[in-house]
């Protein structure tokens, strides 16, 4: 692309739409909320509960627990492979955006990357709400056609022979990447392992680095 600087342009298509600043969005949203509350369509406490749910209760710590269990319990891994939705439900996770789960495993010579090119489908119950980059036009556009370029922008470089498996979330099925368990973690507890597992590693845009040796409790 020959381009990386700003260009003048004229948003005449905005017509009479007026202001479109973020401060204006805040006002518009507030106005809609007031209207919907007044009409009995939404309960303000329900709005707070939804936000609380995704800000505090549901997030990538859930997925990390699934990964740690899969790393340490071969029978669990088998159940995860056979029916990820049920195996994830064993740990208490499920619901909206995770009704149909499939786990895909990284391994020697195999790396998985998840995207939703058509909107921003993402496994909410195990990863929470998607980060901005996952929802960006650029990621949605390039993850399927230029996965190595995308990974490079995340600082992930794979060997030339590594097979990249991209999963485009076109249906209600959601994909969770099971990253490779890093070396040097033999005997670690599930909790300690879960603490290593980053959100991005479960989407496929990060690897889990080998932990630096450090004093650990037995």
């Amino acid at each position, binding site marked *: *692309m020959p381009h990386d600087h700003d260009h003048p342009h004229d948003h005449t*298509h905005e017509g009479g739409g007026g202001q479109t600043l*973020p401060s204006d*969005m*805040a006002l518009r*949203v*507030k*106005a*809609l*909320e007031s*209207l*919907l509350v007044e*009409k*009995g*369509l*939404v*309960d303000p*406490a*329900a*709005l707070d*509960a*939804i*936000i609380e*749910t*995704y*800000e505090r209760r549901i997030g990538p710590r859930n997925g990390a627990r699934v990964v740690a269990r899969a790393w340490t319990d071969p029978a669990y891994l088998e159940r995860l492979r056979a029916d990820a939705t049920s195996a994830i439900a064993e740990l208490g996770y*499920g*619901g*909206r955006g995770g*009704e*149909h789960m499939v786990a895909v495993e990284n391994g020697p010579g195999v790396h998985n990357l998840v995207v939703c*090119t*058509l*909107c*921003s489908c993402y496994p909410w*119950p195990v990863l929470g709400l998607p980060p*901005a*980059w996952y*929802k*960006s*036009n*650029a*990621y*949605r*556009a390039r*993850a*399927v*056609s230029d*996965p*190595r370029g995308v990974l490079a*922008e*995340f600082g992930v470089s794979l060997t030339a022979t590594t097979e*990249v498996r*991209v999963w*485009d*979330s*076109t*249906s*209600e*099925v959601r994909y969770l990447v099971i990253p490779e368990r890093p070396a040097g973690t033999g005997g670690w507890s599930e909790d300690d392992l879960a603490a290593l597992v980053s959100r991005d590693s479960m989407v496929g845009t990060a690897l889990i680095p080998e932990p630096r040796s450090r004093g650990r409790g037995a």
Partner: protein
Amino acid sequence: MNGVHDMGGMDGMGPIDARPEAALFHAPWEARVLALTLAAGAQGRWTLDESRFHRESLPATDYLPMPYYGRWFAALTDLLVKQGLISAQELSSGRADPAAPRATPVNAKAMVARLNLGGPAHRPQVRPPRFAVGDKVRARHLNPPGHTRLPRYARGHVGVIARLHGVHVLPDSNAHGRGEDPQPLYQVRFDACELWGDRAQAPSLVHLDLWEPYLEPV
């Protein structure tokens, strides 16, 4: 529809901002839009497919630069008006019409229960699926004017059935009030070389979940 939302393989979308974000929401209004969308959706007056269709039907010049929750907000107001839950007059004045009936909102507890429950998209099988794992299939050259989950980049290309997900609600029908029309849903594996030709990064695979009417035998 052939919209700009169908971004897989598009060029010109710029670099990805892979920096870690400070917060889940960039501004409080984003969280409120998320919550309003889920809470108003709980009135049951539209399906998730219909909601997606309204987001992707935003004018292309608006959709592309819009922030993610800006798209949600725009589609939500459209749906509310279209379904008669609010009037255009109420939307512009911000005040409920005193003569209009009041709805009953879903309360906080019931709302959280709904999130935890989710809304599975699979349905009972009524006839045997047409394809089996290992079958070669071609994604059809469909160009429906309405909602579809068959991305343009896959149309006309040959892949292999990798998995049968069961029978799922067909978005193309469900988004338009034409019923669920459940159809077998397959995970289809495409070689990147088939999809992207000279530009492909071998070894690389792209998987899509595609409904039976999207596919033809090869």
